[in-house]
């Protein structure tokens, strides 16, 4: 038990206890002279237009980025599972972005996506209109690409490990029964992959909440409207020291996050059972 003490004390002090304090703040009207207001803070938060647009943007980003991150990395893992030359070198290359600090490659991104940048030059060469990637809805695409660039490698490694764990005998039996590679993938591999798909989706979700980093480094405190994320909202609220608002927003996000995780676990459970039947 002694072994757990340092961790328990630290986790308690820095996360669990203050978390209850935050919970308390979210249902009272003032931290100094507390009076219970029930869901009042939540209702006023939901009327806050900055919070609403930040939530909407974060939601839109997660809903599009997570499935893409899962599907693309699964495809890449399957591709690198094939017997092709230089597989391990390719794996190394694709994982490299994980190791590179985002701050280091921001410059290249800025040159590439700038209104007079390389991508627009290419687009104009192809006869398309140029897009102002930093100051239009296109900025969303730019961040999405950066997010995928950074995170696909990690997901791919997870999928490769899971594909490797599938019992070989099972696949050999399927071969003998004349199953095609598509059948093998859909009927055998996907079933074994389902816990990993859950995990990858979960990690991508966690990482999609961190995309503020990329946005901050590329466009600073005040990015284009569609890139105003929850973290921006939190930062600005921190600056004004509005504890009520902050605590309520944190509790709200916590609730949404727990429900999402629960749903993901539930979905995986159902799918897993279906396939076992």
């Amino acid at each position, binding site marked *: 038990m002694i072994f757990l003490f340092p*961790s328990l004390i630290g986790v308690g002090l820095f996360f669990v206890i203050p978390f209850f304090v935050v919970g308390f703040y979210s249902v009272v009207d003032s931290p100094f002279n507390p009076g219970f207001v029930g869901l009042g803070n939540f209702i006023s938060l939901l009327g806050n237009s900055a919070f609403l647009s930040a939530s909407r943007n974060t939601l839109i980003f997660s809903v599009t980025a997570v499935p893409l991150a899962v599907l693309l990395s699964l495809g890449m893992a399957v591709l690198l599972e094939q017997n092709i030359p230089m597989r391990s070198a390719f794996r190394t290359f694709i994982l490299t972005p994980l190791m590179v600090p985002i701050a280091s490659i921001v410059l290249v991104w800025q040159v590439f996506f700038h209104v007079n940048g390389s991508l627009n030059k290419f687009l104009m060469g192809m006869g398309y209109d140029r897009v102002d990637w930093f100051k239009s809805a296109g900025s969303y695409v730019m961040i999405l690409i950066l997010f995928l660039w950074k995170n696909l490698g990690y997901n791919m490694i997870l999928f*490769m490990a899971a594909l490797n764990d599938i019992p070989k005998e099972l696949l050999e039996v399927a071969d003998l029964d004349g199953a095609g590679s598509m059948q093998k993938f859909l009927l055998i591999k996907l079933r074994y992959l389902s816990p990993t798909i859950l995990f990858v989706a979960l990690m991508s979700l966690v990482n999609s909440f961190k995309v503020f980093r990329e946005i901050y480094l590329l466009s600073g405190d005040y990015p284009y409207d569609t890139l105003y994320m929850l973290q921006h909202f939190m930062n600005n609220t921190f600056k004004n020291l509005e504890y009520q608002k902050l605590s309520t927003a944190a509790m709200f996000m916590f609730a949404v996050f727990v429900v999402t995780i629960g749903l993901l676990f539930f979905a995986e459970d159902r799918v897993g059972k279906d396939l076992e039947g």
Partner: protein
Amino acid sequence: MRKKGISGLIKKGILFTIAFLMATSFLLPIILTISNSFMQESEITANYGTVFESLTEDDSATSWYEDERKPKKSPYVSESANLKLIPDMVTFRQYFTVLLQSPDYLLKFWNSVILVVPIVAGQIFVALAAAYCFTRFRSVKKDILFFVYVILMLMPYQVSLVPNFLVAKWLGIINTKAAVILPGVFSTFSVFLLTKFMRRIPTGLIEAAQLDGATEWQIFTRICVPLCKSAVASTAILVFIDYWNMVEQPLILLSDQDSFPLSVFLAQINNGEVGIAFAVAVVYMIPTILIYLYGEEYLIDGISYSGGIKG
């Protein structure tokens, strides 16, 4: 038979080409950053002047490190930016400036180091002990506690930053490095990863030691920790990159710009000193690239073990 061999070869060729294009496109931004850091200031200006507009104005007077040989007339600036892979002329000028002439960048680099190294070391120590407890003394209560740890690990920063901020204020360590370091030390990510690994150690080994009269402390230090060496390496790598890349915590918990790590500072020097910025960017990624070169296998093992939250 023969026909199948040829079509198989074609298929292989196509797959190889796709994989090759994909892999190189992942590497390209990094290569471009490195190669651009060796370009001369004038070449950078010519290529990217339109992107980093403040460059086109004559601000040479304010930049005291400016190369005197640089032509004073307004430099040529291309209308659109071209990302160039190969510099016309290789120069180490930017590195010279960053490493020797301008202490600001090294200071920020050092800020990163003194924030990240204690976090990594502390988190590993705390987590090793906790993981041992979660492995050796399993009970329903501990399993519930472990689940709480998993939830904490997955929690978005936006949620845990508010508690962190409150505690830092309460302890009076807000705006000091401790405000960033302490919550980092107790982050539950390492506990999760190391527990998953330790649970794979055969119990027979530990029971045998127990029969020989080893104390818990001896079992922990002589058997578990040595067996976990590779897991410790992979966990440390993952924790290191995560914190080397940090942006949110310093922005909230440190108000003094001088103590910002390079990750945040880099975003602010992009304007005006592009050549320098490229060099700083490369300097900043050197530690992580070195770690990757030496520890790729550990990293891949570590990621692979982390898969499957329920297992």
